[in-house]
């Protein structure tokens, strides 16, 4: 059964794919490998998973603002997520998504999205399932 969620388009765009969901905040500097796009943060529940080609869902970014540049580098190497969905957007992910050309939606109840679900993003609208 599909569900439509409405949020705020921080970086406009359309994308769809499988959801990779983190229930805890994500740091891109030090938390994600800039060469491979694999989550490397110690003790992170998604450690070892690749963020390439997924709809990446997490509450918000954290850590250094230099993390924005990691998303840019991943996009250039074709290893970026297709879209990002946050509960609350903040500057690191917002700027990173913008310069990397990744659609970004926030103000979404991310508890309604489960790992592996098919998700479609179009501006501020998110269709799940």
């Amino acid at each position, binding site marked *: 059964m599909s569900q439509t969620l409405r949020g*705020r388009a*921080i*970086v406009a765009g359309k994308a769809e794919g499988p959801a990779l969901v983190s229930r805890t905040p994500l740091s891109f*500097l030090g938390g994600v490998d*800039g060469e491979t796009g694999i989550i490397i943060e110690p003790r992170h529940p998604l450690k070892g998973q690749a963020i390439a080609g997924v709809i990446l869902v997490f509450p918000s970014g954290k850590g*250094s*603002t*230099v993390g*924005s*540049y*990691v998303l*840019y*580098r991943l996009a*250039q190497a074709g290893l970026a997520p297709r879209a990002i969905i946050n509960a609350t*957007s*903040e*500057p*690191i992910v*917002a*700027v990173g998504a*913008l*310069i990397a050309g990744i659609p970004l939606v*926030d103000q979404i109840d991310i508890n309604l999205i489960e790992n592996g679900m098919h998700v479609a993003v179009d501006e501020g609208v998110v269709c799940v399932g």
Partner: protein
Amino acid sequence: MKLTDEEQAMLAGAQGPAVKRAIDIVATLGRVFGADELIPVASVQVAGVSYRNLGDAGLGFLQDWASEGARVRVPTTLNPAGMDPAQWQRQGFSSLSAEKQGQVISAYQAMGIEPICTCTPYLFGNLPSYGEHLAWSESSAVAYANSVLGAHTNREGGPGALAAAICGRTACYGLHKPENRQATHKVDVRCRVSEPYEFAALGYLAGKLVGDGIPLFTGLDLPAITLDDSHTVVVTADESDKCKLLGAALASSGAVALYHIRGVTPEVRQRSDLCPPNIKAITINSLHEALAELNHPVEKIDLVVIGCPHASLAEIEEVARLLRGKHLASALWVTTSRAARATAIAPGWVQDIEAAGGLVIAEGCVVVAPMNELPYRTLATNSAKMASYALPHAGLQVRFGALEECTQAALSGRWGKD
């Protein structure tokens, strides 16, 4: 968000792709924070300079943006780098780190930025006026600019600050709005706070208690900071050093970007509405907890660091006076701006420190340096910011105390009295 005709044209690409990218970043940040307009900024201070933090991802982006035609349009300075570009070999860093660091600086220079790498731009060359809007990123400089100078800046991320420099604007939200500059906590200080390192310890304690709030301190014995005819603050070197250490600590143990001191800081002297009723009240009876938490049980000191934030001329002079004619047992670095180092040569202070075996490092910072390349395991400092960052950022055990205690440790090689 309301954009002017010029801003809309910039967003449409009328001034080229680099400007379009810059204003797109600034407008996106405005959307995140619910800003309704952009405002011009008088100056910019950009973080994201140390290669150790930026990595090839950041370096690549800066080079791409520069070759797209990015040029700054307001006075812009940079945060400290990992090392002194002229003295990295004396510091002991590898040529690979130095080469990568040089590439980062070159990318910024290609954007028209003067390579002034310091966390204290307000001490030399860029002293903002009261009420001016800025886009600064270094947390201690943001705290100083807002609190001591009465300027208006949020704590910008590195990319957001650089974007503001390239389009000349930032999003108007947060501390740019007068109504958001009211205190959230009243901090009543009931213990002795007079030495500079005690202001650092106070900042460390208060920062943990107020988080990202705005503290209003009462009970601090400091002279009132006044404004001259051009609306620029007049502050003594001693008070400036104390406020610098206080703000740096507040912004590292907490996320404080603005503090007020009753009867002292300029904004609280100009405005009567900054202490709303019923805000949270905190009492500080002792600095003991800060001193206990910032001192690890180490006796042998490998490296002493004075200059976090970058040392003022008064601090350099004091270190020189304490070391004159003596010989150090430990390494000692005074980290400062290029301009301060150059000024401290004529009176012989740099020579005094070097003759004792110390270094006066320009433009570098231990917190962002590749310290894993060096043999040091322990550090002593008069900065609560450095003391709380040294272990997580540089892997060093720490002693924290007065500047004179630190230089004494450098002379004996050990912390505490012999």
